[in-house]
């Protein structure tokens, strides 16, 4: 259905003025539930009709009001029956009555409203603060927990009976360099503990190698300043020896042997 056509069909006027049939009324009320614009158009016509009727009002004889009020069980105030100031009397009474207790109640309710609003905002603020403090605390706990787990895992790996400790001693190029390699031959995991490795320029890094049948295998890079307790390197199944060299940042595919810093032999080898 086109609601615009319906609005312009004259149904609004029929309905408002009581000229619509029962089925038209039912239909109109149903559409009013669905189309707010229909309700709006109805309201506009009603307002116009009301304004027009008010403009064309004819004052009824004053005794009608007296009779109506008597009939509905009210005491009409008969000040001067033929003049209408009754209206003013009643309105004055309304004003006088509303000046005492209701005014106090109105003032009290406003004060109460302000107090409640203040308490509400204060409570909400406290709640927000507590909630964010709680979040921060939870993050901290999670962080600590994961570090702990990692440390425990590394400790377990090092203490494992399969783990081999390889003491890396300094070469002639770098006699003071020293580190320990922990190699778990069962799981092939390799951990490195830096003891004393000289600081390198920022474009260089240390690289760990496993020597298998004389061939080097890359086990990853690390920095002397790495403040982690234990570094996990790449896995290797086999290794007769481990070597540390200085390479360009990010590592090299094959070791620069003249820059070998330290070397350690596994006990497996001869």
């Amino acid at each position: 259905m086109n609601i615009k056509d319906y609005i312009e069909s004259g149904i609004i006027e029929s309905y408002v003025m009581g000229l619509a049939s029962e089925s038209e009324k039912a239909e109109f009320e149903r559409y009013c539930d669905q189309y707010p614009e229909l309700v709006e158009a109805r309201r506009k016509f009603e307002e116009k009709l009301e304004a027009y009727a008010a403009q064309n009002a004819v004052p009824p004889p004053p005794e009608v009001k007296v009779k109506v009020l008597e009939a509905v069980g009210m005491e009409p105030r008969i000040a001067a029956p033929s003049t209408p100031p009754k209206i003013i009397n009643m309105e004055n009474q309304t004003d006088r009555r509303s000046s005492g207790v209701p005014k106090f109640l109105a003032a009290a309710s406003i004060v109460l409203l302000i107090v409640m609003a203040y308490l509400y905002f204060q409570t909400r603020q406290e709640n927000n603060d507590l909630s964010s403090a709680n979040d921060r605390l939870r993050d901290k706990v999670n962080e600590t927990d994961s570090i702990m787990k990692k440390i425990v895992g590394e400790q377990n790996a090092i203490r494992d009976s399969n783990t081999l400790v390889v003491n890396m001693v300094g070469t002639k190029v770098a006699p003071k360099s020293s580190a320990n390699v922990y190699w778990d031959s069962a799981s092939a995991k390799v951990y490195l503990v830096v003891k004393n490795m000289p600081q390198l320029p920022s474009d260089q890094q240390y690289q760990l190698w496993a020597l298998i049948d004389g061939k080097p295998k890359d086990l990853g890079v690390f920095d002397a300043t790495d403040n982690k307790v234990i570094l996990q390197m790449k896995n290797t199944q086999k290794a007769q020896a481990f070597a540390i060299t200085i390479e360009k940042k990010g590592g090299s595919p094959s070791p620069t042997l003249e820059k070998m810093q330290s070397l350690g032999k596994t006990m497996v080898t001869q």
Partner: protein
Amino acid sequence: MALKERNNQAFGFLYDHYAGALYSIIKQIIIDNNELASDVLQEVFINIWRKIETYDQSKGRLFTWMLNIARNASIDTLRSKSYQNSQKNQELPDNVYKGVANQTTQQNVDNIGLKKVLETLKPEHRVLVEMAYFKGYTHEEMAEMMGIPLGTVKTRIRNALLQLRQYLK
């Protein structure tokens, strides 16, 4: 709503505010009989007082509700036996169309309220609105009396009412 609690002061205010507009409508239906029109107005306000709980805000404004009570009460009075008897010298029922048309022209002199608006309509439209709104005839009754199809009656009334809306702007 204070009225629904039958607040006396609110009802007094309601009377003061709307009695004139409703009296005007009643007088446009019950013509030339101020005494009877006053009685109807009294009855209307007593009915408003009694039925205020049945007023449904979602279906329209309070004034619309009261206006329809006033109109229905006026038409009921107009159609009551006692009123018919007192108007015996008027046209016979089978001549109502002509009668209404005559009345319409006669009353031009002291037209008030909505009837003034009807002046702006074409005669064939005006008669139908007059009969429907101020005399309370149903569309079927009018179609039969005038010998025109029911659809035509409906269309003409709708068109007339739309013109009414224009005029009220």
